[in-house]
């Protein structure tokens, strides 16, 4: 059994969120240390505010300002905060009904320990020093002594220089597993050997292998060496630079049917001017030192393959 390959896979992107009017007012309000809610049709005040009534789905716009103090409706002690969570030291997750609101807001409560937290506890907002118009403008909540004071008061919801979008970076770390068939294939590639799998049922050879015959739906385990020579079945000339790719344009991106394979794989053609590449051109792989995959394919000098020999592979 060959070693099972795995590799880290990072999915990371700074997503741009456009906010729409209600979320914009709420998040801009936080920047200005004001907490806004919205009044639903049944009179309840929703904090954080929804753009739409969660019960009737009708649009709601009547913004109100609520207190920055509130009451814990439930809590959970988080002894080991995870990266990106609001506090780096142990804290309580809380749902807080702010004074004047009828629904609860999720956030963190900075408290010395679980003994200091209970449902019904009074808390107040601790503002972040740097505020940008995000839910994290509330750094967290902190214990507070005062009685319930606030009530919802009408608010125009307009601010100078409102926040209309949010940049939300999100990074997730995965471990990628190519699986048994791909692992075998990759091991062979490292030895500059191109392999496919023959289906026990239809006898077709698939490259690259994936452990199953895609048409028959049965496991395929018989390895077959294919190529290394093959035929260009079709191609395009790439004239725009792809991201993160250090290849000068124009270059040829081709489908190559390796001898002995029943479908084409993809590769770059070089060693011939791009405008002389043609369907039927005979090519062979070229590896660069240390690379697992062929860097490109180059002409073998053989006569071109006849169209009839590869047209079923198009």
């Amino acid at each position: 059994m060959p070693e099972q390959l795995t590799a880290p896979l990072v999915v990371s992107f700074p997503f741009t969120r456009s906010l729409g009017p209600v979320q914009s007012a709420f998040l801009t309000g936080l920047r200005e240390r004001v907490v806004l809610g919205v009044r639903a049709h049944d009179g309840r005040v929703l904090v954080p505010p929804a753009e739409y009534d969660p019960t009737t789905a009708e649009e709601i716009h009547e913004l109100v300002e609520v207190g920055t103090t509130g009451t814990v409706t439930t809590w959970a002690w988080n002894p080991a905060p995870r990266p990106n969570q609001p506090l780096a030291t142990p804290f309580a997750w809380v749902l807080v009904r702010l004074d004047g609101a009828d629904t609860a807001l999720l956030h963190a409560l900075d408290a010395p320990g679980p003994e200091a937290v209970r449902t019904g506890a009074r808390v107040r907002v601790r503002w972040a020093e740097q505020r940008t118009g995000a839910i994290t403008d509330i750094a967290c909540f902190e214990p507070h002594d005062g009685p319930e004071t606030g009530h919802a008061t009408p608010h125009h919801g307009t601010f100078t220089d409102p926040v209309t979008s949010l940049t939300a970076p999100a990074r997730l770390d995965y471990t990628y597993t190519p699986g048994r068939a791909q692992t075998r294939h990759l091991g062979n590639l490292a030895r500059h050997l191109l392999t496919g799998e023959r289906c026990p049922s239809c006898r077709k050879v698939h490259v690259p292998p994936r452990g199953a015959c895609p048409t028959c739906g049965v496991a395929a385990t018989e390895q077959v060496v294919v190529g290394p020579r093959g035929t260009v079945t079709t191609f395009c000339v790439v004239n725009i630079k792809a991201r993160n790719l250090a290849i000068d344009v124009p270059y040829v991106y081709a489908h190559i049917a390796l001898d002995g394979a029943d479908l084409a794989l993809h590769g770059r053609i070089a060693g011939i001017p791009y405008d002389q590449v043609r369907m039927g051109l005979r090519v062979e792989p070229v590896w660069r030192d240390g690379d697992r995959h062929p860097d490109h394919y180059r002409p073998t000098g053989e006569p071109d393959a006849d169209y009839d020999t590869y047209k079923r592979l198009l």
Partner: protein
Amino acid sequence: MSKEPVAVAGIGQTHHAAARRDVSLAGLVREAARRALDDAALTWTDIEAVVIGKAPDFFEGVMMPELHLADALGATGKPVLRVHTAGSVGGSTALVAANLVAARVHRTVLALAFEKQSESNAMWGLSLPVPFQPPLLAGAGGFFAPHVRAYIRRTGAPAGTGTLVAHKDRRNALKNPYAHLHEHGLTLEAVRNSPMLWDPIRYSETCPSSDGACAMVLTDRAGAARAPRPPAWVHGGAMRSEPTLFAGKDFVSPRAGRDCAADVYRQAGITDPRRQIDVAELYVPFSWYEPMWLENLGLAAEGEGWKLVESGATELDGDLPVNPSGGVLSTNPIGASGMLRFAEAALQVRGAAGEHQVPGARRALGHAYGGGAQFFAMWLVAAAPPTG
């Protein structure tokens, strides 16, 4: 017991743009849903279930976004289904919703599809690196361009066919107020001279990247009878899938597409699609796919799709207009693009397509595809209810 006939009683779409920065995700889907409800003269409470479709969640960076959009779509206390069948998803979503009515599980269902590509970047979302694999050598256009070349080789089509299609679709989009691209004064010459990106595909022959949503209200006979405007009736609908890459795959004319069309025609009693279908909204993200799909769908004989294009038959005033809305070439919110085809087909047979209406359209085909040309969804809608 036979199926309940399904009617499209309401249709809505957003104004599509490269970035709809004025609305949240919830605001975007609401804009389309609200228009569909208004069209059907219904309220949120009339909707019994919601079916949502979109392409990969990485496009907006929200996993299963239907969970947080449920409130905005009036779905509290209702069933919500989320469909994802790659690029064909807008069509699949409509068909899943139609089946809920056909099976008499629900009477009135909201189908909705969207994509807000500006929240991330489509090329990023489509080309996340996969360890151990060679880097992708080209973008989406590069993936499809070799198949276009194969089509040209197989049929002897002249180099200008793709240009004709692109020019037609962009001109049609000028008559569609919701379309993303409105390229006033675009000449055939300008399309022909646009940069060659992935030879044989030129810049003006490729689709844009859009924010947008589309919604439809699907209902039963009783719902159709109450509707204030004439509905479109579903006469046939089908999905077909084949593997991504396999020995024997025909990328130029995938069998899944042919089989899917054959199933739809059988259901709808269509024996001569070229004559019996009045207008078609086909998923054409690169202009060359119009002649390819015409053949795949039996609207042109094998090898003759390009001749149909050259003859002008697929122009708005031709005898088989294709993509009078401007198509995917003019508007491409990926997850919604398929549903837009289905919805535009329905608008045509309702006589409600406005400036891009095909006069007297009675039967229309809506078509969507996705993945490596492997997932297909189609429906045939008509002005008259199905018989029998």
